[in-house]
């Protein structure tokens, strides 16, 4: 098992007497990208603030590389690189002067290391310009440079793709994968976008209303809540349709979701092929509706808050 770089146990926080975070617990290992998924207002940023020492926890324990953040803050935080919300840098200084500021605070960082990190984030040409002339993407890269400057063991990023264009997002995604796979860094990413987490992360913790409701490997989680297709079929052909569908490989699950309605869990790209098979076997298909699982569905399902989904899955899931 890889080294546990970040261990969070029973983290609690109340703001103004109101509990915001209840018992958050998870571990992050070296070399993995860990997603921290939750809707806006679920407590992601509050949790991150506690992980990097910006806010004090009311209870629980945060250990970074097995060093307690509460008891030995400087040693623990030296292992962390972070960008909380936007990468706010000193706009009136140049990129290099910014990095020099952080180098002096971390200690033991050579000029060569600064050069190296500037090359790593591909900012060589702009590094001596003032940060106020930088584009958002460049600021993001300088932000990453400052986060990686002191060779941390874990990189904590809060909604890193906010405000980036699609090309920037793709670039960031590849960059993060590379950090984890090649440098063995643990990367902790918060997001409210399921697709983003799906593409970047190995494991994910899902939080809602200040509680972790599920921690797991992303693929498994996604399989569990894969895309669904709803077929409208006359009552007279229901039985036949169900048996045909069950024999098709692309379909993983079939259940009746209403009168004249059959639902399948399957790869959406296979819809037309499955439809052809059904029609070929003499099943009159009168309607097809594809439904992509959204994060909201997932939350509703996991928290049991969604009536429709709750009964569907609860009542008909067969393994």
């Amino acid at each position, binding site marked *: 098992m890889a080294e546990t770089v970040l261990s969070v146990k029973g983290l609690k926080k109340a703001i103004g007497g109101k509990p915001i975070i209840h018992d958050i617990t998870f571990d992050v290992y070296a070399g993995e990208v860990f997603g921290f998924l939750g809707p806006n207002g679920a407590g992601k940023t509050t949790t991150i603030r506690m992980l990097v020492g910006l806010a004090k926890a009311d209870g629980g324990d945060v250990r970074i590389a097995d060093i307690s953040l509460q008891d030995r803050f*400087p040693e623990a935080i030296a292992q962390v690189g972070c960008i909380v919300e936007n990468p706010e840098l000193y706009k009136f200084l140049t990129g290099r002067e910014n990095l020099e500021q952080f180098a*002096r605070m971390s200690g033991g960082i050579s000029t060569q290391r600064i050069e190296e990190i500037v090359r790593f984030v591909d900012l060589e040409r702009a590094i001596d310009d003032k940060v106020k002339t930088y584009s958002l993407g460049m600021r993001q890269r300088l932000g990453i440079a400052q986060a990686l400057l002191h060779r941390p063991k874990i990189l904590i990023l809060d909604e890193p793709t906010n405000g980036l264009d699609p090309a920037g997002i793709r670039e960031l995604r590849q960059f993060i994968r590379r950090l984890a796979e090649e440098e063995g860094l643990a990367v902790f990413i918060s997001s409210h976008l399921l697709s983003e987490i799906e593409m970047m992360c190995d494991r994910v913790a899902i939080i809602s209303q200040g509680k972790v409701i599920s921690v797991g490997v992303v693929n498994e989680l996604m399989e569990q809540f894969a895309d669904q297709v709803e077929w409208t079929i006359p009552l007279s052909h229901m039985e036949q349709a169900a048996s045909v569908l069950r024999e098709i490989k692309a379909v993983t699950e079939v259940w009746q979701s209403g009168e004249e309605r059959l639902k399948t869990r399957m790869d959406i790209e296979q819809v037309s092929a499955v439809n052809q098979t059904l029609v070929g076997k003499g099943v009159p298909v009168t309607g097809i509706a594809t439904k992509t699982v959204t994060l909201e569905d997932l939350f509703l399902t996991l928290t049991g808050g969604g009536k429709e989904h709750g009964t569907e899955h609860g009542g008909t899931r067969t393994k």
Partner: protein
Amino acid sequence: MGQSMVGLVQNETVKLLRRRRFLVVVLILAILIPIFTYAQYRSVVTAQERMGTTDWRPLLTQQIVDMQNRLASSRLPEEWRDFIKIRIQQQQYYLDHDINPMAPGGPTFARGFMDQAISMFLPMIIVVLAVDLVSAEFSEGTIKLLLTRPVRRWKVLTSKYITMLLFTSLTVLTTLILAYLISGVVFGYSGWDLPILTGFEVTDGELTTTGAFMLPQWQFLLMQYGLGWFVCIVVGTVTFMVSVLVRSAAAGMGIMMAALISGTILTQMASSWESSKYLFVVNLQLTDYLNGTLPPIKGMTLPFSLTVLSVWAIAALVVAYLVFTRKDVTS
């Protein structure tokens, strides 16, 4: 992880200079001192016109003779006698060394400038320098970068405080140098050895001159700018606390301005409200104790004012450290 304080102070210095705070301060001084110099020059010219002569020597001689006549009078109390003797010595010195007391040199201007600037102008400049030292990090969001480094919060705040002390000291020094250099263009650069009367004491609300003595002007200036420096440090420390407590620089500026201005108003009308002497803003005019001006409120002495100012500064520091080390950083 003991990051050197020198490195942290270097960081703060770079930021303060690159935010052009010190440049603004020097510019304010470089613009206002020539204006004051001109005003002083006009008042000298006007005084000469009133006398109807530019020759000041007969006038001074006349004053000395007048005072000697008063000394001869037997009705004069003993303590007055000593004081007048010192005054005569002073005037005689001017005459002997060919110094026109009406047309001051650079050092005399610098002395007058500190008298005027100590309770309002200099404190305001220090407020400009220190008001966003901490709050700017919060309003620009860079506090998140500052506090997620392997440095304890108290060390971060200490580096900022040391930087404030450095630049406050530099400001007072710059004030002296600029006041001397700029006014010297008009009034000349001599006068360091000019004898200045000091040593007055206040007992029971009366000014006593028994302890009065003469001091060369350079020594007097040293004492005066030392007191000015102390006032600036205290105002800087209180501003520093405001900077920790208030996130917006404009609000911080407003609070400090209001405090300083109300201090000026109170010193003018507070003789009936005695306990206002415990407010720091009422105790800023420290140079008055050297000049022998009666204090605005009964019971105020130099040690009293120094104590009040020190207590305020220490209390402000305690509040600043307590709040800064405990505060959660929110967006």
